[in-house]
């Protein structure tokens, strides 16, 4: 039996305790945060780059798919074994190898959870800015595969802006090294940027060199209630025009506010149709002045109320409003389609208006919140899929959302990636020549198409999922 043969060979590489073909382990590695399920054939937990390389060589020789997996918390199906194969779980490779306070560098293994690294570097007065909402459990390897973002990217950029170098096992099992330990490095192609955001289709990252910053001394949070979404959007541009780059500029639209209001008592004016949460960071002495300046700049834009946190508790109370949105969505409808489109900052009001019209036209609630500062809107289409015809309606709505986003000069994914979920829509954004260039790269590195197949490219899209009760 082929599987038995593979199991034996994998056991030779990683030890019997770290490989399984048991149905229990296959089921626990069949899903991610998309709630789809696809059964892999084998699950393996390697401990070194050498082991990963041997696993990939074996898989390449046997022409069996390899699925790199970190926390399995992706939203677009990046770690789903849509064609079966070997799930390579990287959680055992979870060491922080080095924090270099002279050169402001951290060297880590891919299974390190983002939040752990942040905690460790912050002890030393340093700072790793990317902060996806999943940072307490998602891994740096996964963050790199998806090029994760987060609220702080308005000021600090996304994961790719902090990756200096990578060790990667390619789909043929070679161990390659990209970039290095220096800010400046122009030797050869910039393969680091190629691998960051490649969604595990070009190789498995086994070691990561990250750039760190000094930790800002303090931060100041403010909540601003607006009479209209236009006011809030104009405020974003006005703040940037005022030469202030806040750490975060989060917004909630009227639907999101209504949703939170239903779930918890919310101390906001009834006329409030949009909320901005603005946070600035830096030297303590400067923050109060910056907050006052922001208040002054935005005051003429239909501001109903401005609340500036004076203590950590008040700051926490403000963030709690924002964090209440996601859990409260379930009260609307059982099924959530969470998209993360991005449009140029100035187009946010146009996009929100288009979403409101879509919501009315199709009679489905659409709740929007997210990172106004960089135009990244989390669009949540809330439906009950048990209603007849709803599946088709959702597809129609999503299609129109993506079309509008690209027409406004934006993108169909800001930080979640394409995976399987958005593969059918990728051609709306990328022209044929561009997509073909990507395919050429994929074929060159992965001639047998074993590395996370069925992702990104639309003609690779999977068939029917393994189903399970509760999904």
């Amino acid at each position, binding site marked *: 039996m082929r599987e038995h043969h593979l199991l034996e060979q994998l056991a030779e590489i990683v030890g019997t305790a770290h490989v399984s073909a*048991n*149905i*229990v*382990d296959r*089921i*626990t*590695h*069949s*899903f*991610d*945060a*998309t*709630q789809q*399920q696809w059964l892999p054939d084998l699950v393996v*937990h390697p401990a070194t780059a050498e082991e990963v390389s041997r696993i990939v060589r074996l898989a390449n020789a046997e022409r069996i798919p390899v699925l790199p997996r970190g*926390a*399995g*918390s992706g939203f677009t199906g990046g770690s789903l074994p849509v064609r079966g194969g070997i799930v390579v*779980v990287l*959680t*055992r490779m*979870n060491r922080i190898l080095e924090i270099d306070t002279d050169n402001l560098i951290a060297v880590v293994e891919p*299974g390190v*959870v983002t*939040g752990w690294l942040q905690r460790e570097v912050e002890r030393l007065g340093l700072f790793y800015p990317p902060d996806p909402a*999943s940072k*307490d*459990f*998602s891994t740096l390897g996964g963050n790199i595969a998806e090029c994760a973002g987060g609220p702080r990217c308005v000021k600090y950029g996304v994961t790719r802006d902090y990756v200096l170098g990578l060790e990667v096992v390619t789909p043929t099992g070679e161990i390659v090294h990209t970039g290095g330990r220096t800010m400046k490095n122009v030797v050869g192609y910039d393969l680091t940027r190629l691998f960051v955001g490649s969604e595990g289709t070009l190789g498995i990252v086994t070691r990561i060199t990250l750039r760190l910053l000094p930790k800002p001394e303090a931060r100041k949070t403010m909540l601003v209630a607006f009479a209209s979404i236009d006011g809030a959007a104009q405020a974003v541009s006005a703040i940037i025009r005022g030469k202030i780059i806040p750490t975060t500029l989060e917004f909630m639209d009227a639907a999101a506010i209504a949703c939170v209001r239903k779930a918890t008592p919310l101390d906001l004016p009834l006329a409030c149709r949009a909320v901005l949460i603005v946070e600035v960071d830096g030297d303590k002495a400067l923050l109060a002045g910056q907050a006052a300046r922001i208040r002054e700049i935005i005051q003429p834009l239909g501001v109903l109320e401005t609340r500036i946190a004076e203590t950590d508790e008040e700051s926490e109370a403000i963030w709690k409003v924002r964090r209440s949105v*996601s*859990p409260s969505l*379930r009260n609307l409808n059982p099924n*959530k389609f969470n998209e993360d489109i991005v449009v140029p900052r100035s187009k946010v009001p146009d996009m929100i208006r288009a979403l409101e019209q879509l919501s009315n036209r199709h009679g489905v609630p659409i709740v929007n919140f997210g990172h106004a500062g960089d135009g990244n809107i989390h669009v949540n289409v809330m439906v009950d899929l048990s209603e007849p015809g709803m599946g088709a309606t959702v597809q129609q709505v999503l299609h129109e959302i993506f079309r509008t986003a690209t027409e406004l000069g934006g993108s169909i994914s800001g930080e979640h990636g394409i995976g399987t979920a958005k593969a059918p829509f990728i051609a709306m954004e990328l022209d044929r020549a561009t997509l073909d260039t990507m395919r050429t790269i994929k074929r060159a590195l992965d001639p047998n198409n074993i590395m996370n197949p069925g992702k990104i490219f639309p003609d690779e899209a999977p068939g029917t999922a393994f189903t*399970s*009760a*509760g*999904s």
Partner: protein
Amino acid sequence: MAENTTLDDYREQIAQCVRCGACQAHCPVYLETGREGSVARGKIVLAAAVLAGEVGLEERLREEMSLCLLCGSCVVKCPNRVPTDGIVGALRRQLADRHGLSAIGKGVAALTGSKPLLRTLLKGADLLSPLLFKKIPQSSGLHLRFSPDLLRDRSLPPLPERSLFALMPEFLEGEADKPLIGIFAGCAITYLYPEVGELLVRLPHSLGFSVFFPKDQGCCGMPAFSSGNGPLIGKLADANIAAFATRKVETILTACASCHGMLAGHYAEKAGNPFAGELVDIHVFLAHEGLIDRLAALPRWPQRIRVAYHDPCHLRAAGIVKQPRDLLRALPQVDYVEMEDAGLCCGLGGTFTAAHPELSRAIADRKVAGLRASGAAIVASGCPGCILQLQDIVDRAGLPVKAVHTLELIGQALAGPSP
């Protein structure tokens, strides 16, 4: 007899898991293993697969289900509050029904299901005495739960001569206008830490309450829940209901976080909180009765001791985090210090430590850095299980720290400085 939930009762809640993975950040077992089957999300997917008939009640499933401390950390942090502890409990009962109880589960049943046996074991005898163990047949599950092999390297409190039942009367008369308070002591406080039990009885009495401490009370059922013994959970609940039924109590106090967690029904068991009265943790009760102000008004002792607090999972999961700290801060002989990772599980998890001793220790050792950095000479907690484990942790790490129950420090403060 009280009825237990089945896996089928959780069908709807299982469907509410959106597989986001947030539980990974809070699961003490997953933090050690990094394996999807260890964490709530993986267990829920398996539960769904069992319901759908996609996986049988096989050995590998039993192994994964045994890897849960029932600490409830994942439930508290779950965006949809999916009751994974209850789901694991139901699945363990289903597995036990099919395959019989594990050796440890049989030991639990022998010990907690029979009070006379527990009393005999402790009556003037050393629980660890090899002689005593020779008298118990090799086939007894007690050998597995309390075998000398398992306990050899572990710090244990000196075993008391008399249990709490022998030390305390069943009823103490209080002021006429104050209601009657019930006391649920639990096994660990009754037999291992009766001095904590004395405070649990005497403190409300000193505040003017009449106190009822029925001697027919038994185990809360947590070990039975943990080992999947459904019939025993019901039997114990019935016995406890009967014990408290002879008097009308409005409030029942506990000083054991795990008993509180079990009886307050955090497991969404139909057998949860068997009592007519409201179940209240002693810290919450004392805070409510104004003891914090009274303690804060006492003259500060010139020689104070640095004290940190460890959150028992079953208090933290019930949202009881503030009252124990407020009480400690108010103590005149204490300089309170908040230690890092105060809320991390101690790794005991009842029978978990017997089933997975190495993993239990690895989880426990995550407490060491915070304890050491705090510089505390005493670590206080609200659960005898945690106290037992914490003392073992600091002893193994060679830290000069003593683990005590919060009540012991409160008792010390009220008694005043020794002359």
